[in-house]
């Protein structure tokens, strides 16, 4: 399936498409606000998601201030602390990472990379964004609701989430959270169907599935998974909303609340956990797979080398996607479920490590014998590998059921998932922004500021989360607003906590440099030209940069080769674009 670069393929005539008049927007509002252009929608998604990210970042500062300097910031009481972790966690996972990868990168890159003019359902695509924005507004509004936002933890486990011992449990907080999630899922479904159908139906002539860039594969697989996973959360949210508002007992057994018996009976708290993690575990990969895909393309482009083992990479993505639906209960080893499930879920979980490891090998083997340009996107890609390998390996601790017993619900878990699904994907997002910003704006981001941003973010984040594992190993539980007077915790652990907090403040602050760079370079960045990285994939071959509505002008591109023809022997440049029919090469045997 890897294409012979020296082809006997004749030039296929590009389909000549008349410009459809109705298709283009006429007013400023339909062009930039209620836009149906996937690229504008992508920017809207990205802007909202990054803004939510900044809020979630500030929340992490507040939490860290409390943990590093307990008692100093008296406004962060237990109530506030639990509200902060809940909103921070939910925002980061769902409203930032999912929205940014699928709504942001998916919208921008899918049509361009597969050679389409737009998503197949542009109107639905537009609705998807506005519904997402509504979900964000509901979520943020819960900060101002009576009783404040919910403090149930991002996992929202009942009965605690809807009883009075938890902030927002008997106020508006939990209701607004559930409603916001439901709205988000409705919006996402509209977008997700679009991404999947577009990839399946709207590829340019010659763009077979096995010629697609891995970025598209990653986003496509993740969207498909999200369409299967989010409904579980949706029904869980509906049932919990009924329990909270209508007095049903889906998740409520006979319990007492602060000494008073409640009129509930027969429900199962574990049922919610199963529903939540049936969504929640695939969600981890919904965030990870787009990052896998994007980072593959960053590494290949900036190392000027074909991605190593492309077919294996595609199969590994699909295998991870499929397996991730049968590992969910590894989040529940100590939940009180039937302990025999442990054997099954530990085995499936460790099996997932194999395709994941293959991906890592192929990334580093792409570097091997490459021509490595240490550009900012490449630096972020390298840092991604470090943090992802680190977090993936600690996943082997937590997946191995009995090892999870002492570590579960401790700071070890917090360190693990931040490394693997917080820091690693965010590093890819940064790398991807530095990489595609020139296509979006026509200008390069500033390099010096980029380097500063990179080094502080990478080393700082590593310094935050690497030592944190050891606090968990010692036994410090997560979601503890205060670890004062625990006999087994030595004073040095408090010093470490203070250090982590200072690092978190520094890493947070440096993001302002990045935000500044984004705005400053719009005007003052170096002119990029159409293909500054000399990349092969179609988005770099558009007739205009930034690409206008419809992307391709009159002629859709035709694809002749896979996405990774870098440094093909004998070619006169070190890349051959996917839509270039004749390899301009003198000699040399092809690869097949």
């Amino acid at each position: 399936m890897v294409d012979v670069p020296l082809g006997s393929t004749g030039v296929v005539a590009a389909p000549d498409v008349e410009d459809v008049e109705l298709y283009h927007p006429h007013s400023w509002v339909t062009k930039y606000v209620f836009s149906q252009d996937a690229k504008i929608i992508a920017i809207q998604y990205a802007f909202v998601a990054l803004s939510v990210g900044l809020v979630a970042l500030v929340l992490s500062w507040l939490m860290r201030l409390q943990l590093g300097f307990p008692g100093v910031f008296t406004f962060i009481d237990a109530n506030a602390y639990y509200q902060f972790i809940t909103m921070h966690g939910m925002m980061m996972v769902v409203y930032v990472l999912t929205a940014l990868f699928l709504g942001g990168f998916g919208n921008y890159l899918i049509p361009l990379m597969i050679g389409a003019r737009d998503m197949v359902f542009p109107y639905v695509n537009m609705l998807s964004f506005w519904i997402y924005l509504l979900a964000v507004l509901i979520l943020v509004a819960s900060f101002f609701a009576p009783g404040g936002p919910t403090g149930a933890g991002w996992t929202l486990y009942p009965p605690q989430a809807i009883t009075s011992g938890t902030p927002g449990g008997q106020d508006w907080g939990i209701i607004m959270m559930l409603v916001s999630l439901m709205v988000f899922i409705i919006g996402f479904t509209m977008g997700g169907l679009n991404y999947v159908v577009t990839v399946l139906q709207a590829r340019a002539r010659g763009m077979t599935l096995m010629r697609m860039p891995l970025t598209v594969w990653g986003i496509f697989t993740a969207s498909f998974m999200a369409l299967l996973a989010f409904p579980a959360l949706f029904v869980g949210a509906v049932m919990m909303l009924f329990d909270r508002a209508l007095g049903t007992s889906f998740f409520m057994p006979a319990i007492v609340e602060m000494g008073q018996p409640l009129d509930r009976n027969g429900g199962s708290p574990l049922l919610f956990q199963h529903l939540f993690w049936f969504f929640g575990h695939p969600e981890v990969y919904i965030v990870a797979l787009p990052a896998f895909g994007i980072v593959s393309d960053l590494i290949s482009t900036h190392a000027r080398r074909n991605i190593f083992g492309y077919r294996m990479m595609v199969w590994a993505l699909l295998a991870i996607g499929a397996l991730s639906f049968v590992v969910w209960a590894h989040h529940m080893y100590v939940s009180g479920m039937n302990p025999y499930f442990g054997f099954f879920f530990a085995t499936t979980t460790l099996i997932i490590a194999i395709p994941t490891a293959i991906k890592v090998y192929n990334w580093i083997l792409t570097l091997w014998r490459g021509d490595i340009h240490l550009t900012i996107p490449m630096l972020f890609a390298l840092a991604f590998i470090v943090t992802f390998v680190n977090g993936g390996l600690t996943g082997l601790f937590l997946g191995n059921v009995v090892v999870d017993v002492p570590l579960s619900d401790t700071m070890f878990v917090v360190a693990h998932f931040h490394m693997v699904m917080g820091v690693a994907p965010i590093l890819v997002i940064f790398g991807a922004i530095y990489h595609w910003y020139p296509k979006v704006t026509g200008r390069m981001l500033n390099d010096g500021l980029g380097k500063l941003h990179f080094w502080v973010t990478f080393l700082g984040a590593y310094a935050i989360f690497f030592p944190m594992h050891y606090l968990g190993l010692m036994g410090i539980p997560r979601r503890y607003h205060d670890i004062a007077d625990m006999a087994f915790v030595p004073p040095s652990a408090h010093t470490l906590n203070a250090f982590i907090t200072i690092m978190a403040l520094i890493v947070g602050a440096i993001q302002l440099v990045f935000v500044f760079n984004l705005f400053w370079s719009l005007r003052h960045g170096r002119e990029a030209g159409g293909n500054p990285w000399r990349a092969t994939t179609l988005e770099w071959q558009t007739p205009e940069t930034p690409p206008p509505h419809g992307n391709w002008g009159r002629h859709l591109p035709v694809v002749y080769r896979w996405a990774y023809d870098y440094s093909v022997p004998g070619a006169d440049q070190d890349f051959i674009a996917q839509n270039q029919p004749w390899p301009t090469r003198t000699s040399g045997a092809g690869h097949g």
Partner: protein
Amino acid sequence: MAVALILVLVAVGSVVFHLVSPWWWTPIASNWRYIDDTIIITFWITGAVFVAVILFMAYCVYRFRHQEGRQAHYEPENKRLEWWLTIVTGVGVAAMLTPGLFVWQRFITVPDDATDIEIFGQQWQWSFRLPGPDGQLATTDTRLISPDNPLGLNRDDPKSQDDMVIEGGELHLPVNKPVKALLRSPDVLHDFYVPEFRAKMDLVPGQISYIWFTPTRTGTFEILCAELCGVGHPQMRGKVIVQEESEYQAWLQEQASKSFAHLTPGIRNGTVMPD
């Protein structure tokens, strides 16, 4: 150059941190040394992989950095290498999983001579129930909970006559005797966690979960709640006091006399700690 060097420093620094940092697990006080052993195996395997991957990357960054005239090698795939790597990974994973599953089998198989006790967690305190001379715990029902029956014992159950209820957070256990703790919550999820025992398990309202362990050294250990249970979660603490058999018996005698009074309706004592 600098990039390769920093990558090496990250790998080496992580290993050095692991070896010299003062933050490590608490000295174990239960039979779950196997868990510690499995963690150690996992640390070795994963540590080796981590260092190997990062050093390899650093080498590539150094050796294949862009220079005038360098051309990357064009090689889409290498089936042999890919299969070898897959197999080696599979073996490494099996080396961690297999001992893990054996230990899990032990973890969930309660020995016959284990004593049943009950650990009862509610927002936000721990209580305990010992079976008394008959060695059996009476049945319970959340709907029977009332101020003079705080754990919801079924008084019609004859086994309830000698059950010993301890409210307020101190659990005494004899050393080297296996216990099977039945875990019960009347309100929300909690989690019984003693770092020195390595063991933890959730308490789930509406069902009874269990955990077993054998305390292997005497001393006082902290009980933490490890499942978010509302604003009082970090304050939900208790103590396990592991004693020599003789001391434990003495304590038990003392409790037994108090506990008799406890069964008289309306009088609420039998508590070890005032609440």
